[in-house]
């Protein structure tokens, strides 16, 4: 049996968008507003906050910290799912919402959200100064921003590609929108949601580790978890604890994969829409176990009974709800059924957005006006430095991941063998290793200025590797045979088959890899290792430093420039390159 290609979720391909439109401009303005808000938020924070995080480095304490980290990731994932369902549904149902939300998603997906981290942490700390609530919220919010977008896009795509006869059939059956959602739309989207959830979770660990180990200058915002355990262990030079933290992380990733994702992936096969027998889905021992076991079935029966009891118990409560129902449910429906009311509603919404966007831009411009000419020069040169690093990182990552991906992808056996290993390694959050890498690089005489590039490679390389493997594995067997029959030399094989076939996937991989590298720059250019602060000039360190020194105008400028560069580069370079590669080198069809 031939191995099917590693499947990558749809979300890695950008949403179908035309050129820069009005909606994009609105979105960019709103983004400006967001920057202004975060900065204003951070400004509220005045009292120097010194939280010496108490981390127990004994191995017995480690499971507790692991669970802390895990629960943050899971909570954020649940929030992301709820958000994705609402967002995707709205975008798919309303043409007007679609026109606003798709560009928004595109921008949110590409801006380096880590740039907002320092401001966000400071701001939330000011709201909840006494307790860790602010930090926890910031952590969950950061992970959420890493997880939500591809889920939302996946749900939107599933809704849009739902075959029309299925919709017609459910409408002919008289299904209302809620029944249609639960029994048609959600099941049809289940596969995409699970596969993307898996990816999101991996992305979430990256942000969680940064968050848990976050320090700014002399201020310590670390949260109890694996990330801070690692960071404290490094501070104290406790090699054993460092090793244990890494082991704990790997154990967590592997068990989440085995206990959560693998069973889910196997289970959602049931919701496959097309009739093809399905790709080679690895079995799941956990699901087998659950299916064979009696207890779950008993639990299901219990659950049903509990549900019925609960329904009965809430009956007295249902009457007021039922009374309110016409108002709550039908009120908006009636209101939106009326064309005048609908137009008014849309107008109000548009006006509200316009006002928000306008205010945001105005506030941002107020902040930016405080920047002098020298500030702008600093910003520009730092941005240039970081840009060069990001591109260097992408090039370096390509240099190893492209050949490796081709070699793995063209041999089904190797791909099957490597897949689980690569999946675990790729899920491992790179920031946890940053300090180790920095120390190692310093041993061989490389300073952070160059070392940061290596760290950025770590943040982005997997996307390239994954995309190349799946593209090469998808080359039709007959093409490979043709190349063999005509006895092309191995150089010619690469030039005429593997590289062109991998190119479209490579182009998509570059977008995500560059995004990862930009995010990585925030951490890589300004980091505290073993009690000593190391920085190197660049946009990432500029943002962190501006926050540490309460230079809010510079902070706003830094985030703005970074967002503009990333979004602009995506639109002007990556996107056209991707669509060109797609039309020119797509294998088959």
């Amino acid at each position, binding site marked *: 049996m031939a191995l099917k290609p590693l499947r990558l979720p749809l979300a890695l391909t950008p949403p179908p968008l035309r050129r820069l439109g009005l909606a994009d401009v609105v979105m960019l303005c709103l983004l400006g507003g967001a920057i202004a808000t975060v900065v204003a938020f951070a400004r509220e924070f005045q009292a120097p906050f010194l939280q010496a995080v108490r981390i127990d480095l004994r191995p017995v304490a480690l499971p507790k910290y692991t669970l802390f980290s895990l629960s943050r990731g899971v909570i954020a994932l649940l929030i992301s799912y709820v958000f994705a369902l609402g967002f995707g549904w709205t975008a798919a149902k309303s043409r007007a919402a679609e026109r606003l939300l798709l560009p928004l998603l595109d921008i949110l997906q590409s801006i380096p959200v880590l740039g907002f981290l320092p401001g966000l942490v400071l701001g939330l700390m000011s709201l909840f100064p006494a307790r860790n609530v602010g930090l926890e919220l910031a952590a969950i919010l950061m992970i959420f921003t890493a997880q939500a977008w591809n889920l939302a896009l996946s749900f939107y795509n599933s809704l849009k590609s739902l075959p029309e*006869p299925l919709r017609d*059939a459910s*409408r*002919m059956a*008289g*299904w209302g929108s809620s029944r249609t959602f639960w029994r048609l739309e959600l099941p049809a989207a289940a596969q995409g949601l699970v596969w993307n959830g898996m990816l999101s979770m991996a992305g979430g660990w990256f942000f969680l580790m940064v968050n848990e180990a976050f320090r700014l200058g002399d201020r310590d915002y670390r949260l109890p978890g694996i990330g801070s355990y690692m960071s404290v262990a490094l501070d104290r030079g406790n090699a054993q604890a460092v090793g244990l933290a890494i082991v704990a992380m790997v154990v967590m990733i592997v068990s989440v994969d085995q206990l959560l994702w693998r069973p889910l992936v196997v289970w959602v096969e*049931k*919701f*496959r*829409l097309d009739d093809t027998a399905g790709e080679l889905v690895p079995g799941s021992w956990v699901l087998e176990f659950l299916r064979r076991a009696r207890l779950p079935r008993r639990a299901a029966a219990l659950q049903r009974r509990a549900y019925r009891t609960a329904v009965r118990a809430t009956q007295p409560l249902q009457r007021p709800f039922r009374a309110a129902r016409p108002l709550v449910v039908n009120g908006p429906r009636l209101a939106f059924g009326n064309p005048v009311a609908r137009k008014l509603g849309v107008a109000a919404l548009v006006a509200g957005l316009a006002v928000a966007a306008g205010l945001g831009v105005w506030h941002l411009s107020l902040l930016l006006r405080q920047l002098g000419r020298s500030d702008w020069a600093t910003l520009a040169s730092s941005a240039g430095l970081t840009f060069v690093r990001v591109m260097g990182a992408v090039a370096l990552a390509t240099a190893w991941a492209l050949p490796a991906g081709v070699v793995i992808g063209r041999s089904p056996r190797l791909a099957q063998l490597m897949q689980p290993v690569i999946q675990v390694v790729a899920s491992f959050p790179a920031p946890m290793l940053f300090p180790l890498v920095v120390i190692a690089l310093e041993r061989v005489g490389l300073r952070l200025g160059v070392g940061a590039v290596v760290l950025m490679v770590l943040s982005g390389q997997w996307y390239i590797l994954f995309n190349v493997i799946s593209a090469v594995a998808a080359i039709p067997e007959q093409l490979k045979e043709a190349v063999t029959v005509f006895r092309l030399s191995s150089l010619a094989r690469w030039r005429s088959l593997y590289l062109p076939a991998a190119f479209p996937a490579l182009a998509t991989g570059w977008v995500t890899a560059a995004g990862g590298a930009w995010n990585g720059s925030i951490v890589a250019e300004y980091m505290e290792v073993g009690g000593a602060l190391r920085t190197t000039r660049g946009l990432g360190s500029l943002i962190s430093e501006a926050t540490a020194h309460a230079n809010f105008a510079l902070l706003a400028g830094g985030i703005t420039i970074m967002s503009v560069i990333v979004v602009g580069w995506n639109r002007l370079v990556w996107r056209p390159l991707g669509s060109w590669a797609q039309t020119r080198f797509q294998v088959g069809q």
Partner: protein
Amino acid sequence: MTPGGVLLEARHVTQRFRLPNGQVLEALRDVSLAVREHEVVALVGPSGCGKSTLLRLLAGLTRPADGQLLYRGQPLDGVLGAAAMVFQSFALLPWLTVAENVAMGLETRGVNGAARRDAVARAINLVGLDGFEQAYPKELSGGMKQRVGFARALAVAPEILLMDEPFGALDPLTAENLRSQAVSLWRDPATGVNTMVIVTHSVEEAVFLAGRIVVFGSNPGHVREELINQLPYPRKERSPQFEEMVDRLHAILTATLLPEAEPAPAAAPQRLPPFARVHVAEVTGLLDHLLTRPDGKGPVFELSEDLGVDYDRMSAVVRGAEQLGWVTTPGEIVQLTPAGREIMAMDDAARKDATRARLSRHPLFARILGMLKEGEGSVEDEEVLADLTIYFPFIPADSLFQTIIEWGRYAELLDHDADAARLTLLTS
């Protein structure tokens, strides 16, 4: 059963769609159709004639841009509850079992508990699927899946059964079997179904099932002709009356698909005949086949059967060959012309030369060649596409453009540079 009063009616219905490229396509123009009680109506016509669109309008799944839909004299508001629908692609939910799929329409109609189980069991029994209640659709063959589709429709005991090419995706044997069953379901008073509307591609199917056959024309979709079919049920496909009916319908369809040559375009320079969107190999394949026939001729539907090409496609290929003067079509007969015989006797190079000569005389090619000469041998794709869109608003410009490129390249008249997105003139 004799048709009773009007049950479902479309009055002067027009429907338009906006295509992804911004073009507006008129799928139906001013169509009126009354479906009476106890009647089976078949809608036939070339693909893209809007017959499925009309079916969706009748079901209340979409609203018309213009005109009215009435059920028992009342304007239709939303989905028609008295109807159920059977789809070509079955439209079963893969995550529901057969029984759950069949029950889809019952819950919302307030049929619950034991009554629901009974209704499901009865519907499953009617289509002969007993024993498969707990199977998932992916475990069933195509014919079985469509039985589930029928059971789902019958479970709600609909007054009207709407069917969109219900046998189109099935193999001929299964289709024939299900067709006879559809007739008996309609004639069986126990099912509650008293009226059926079926969209179909197959002439035999229409004659087999329908009491009234409505033939549609395209660009934009409109009703061309209605044919009353009073053969008694159950109909026998080999009987002379049946075959006569089939021939009559074939003749009407052929006239729809292959209109007699229009007066010379010189009189009206604004109108260009489109070029049939067919491949070079298809046209030469047709000529090759005609050569093997006595006198080099045969009726279109026979050709389509012999070559295993569907009727629509066959007609398009015939139109293509006719445009180049290689066949003529007196009535529904396709006749190889002397020019057609000649070209088949040539070697490859001579054939290309002859094709080139024919093509350059075709008004559409002549126009494009003119554009190329004006542009000093090269024009942008965009320009040609815009031109095609203006002249042929009902034909997807991209696909017509692809055809032009293919024929142009074959005849070595022109070439296309995909990277620069330009069409270039070949001069030799």
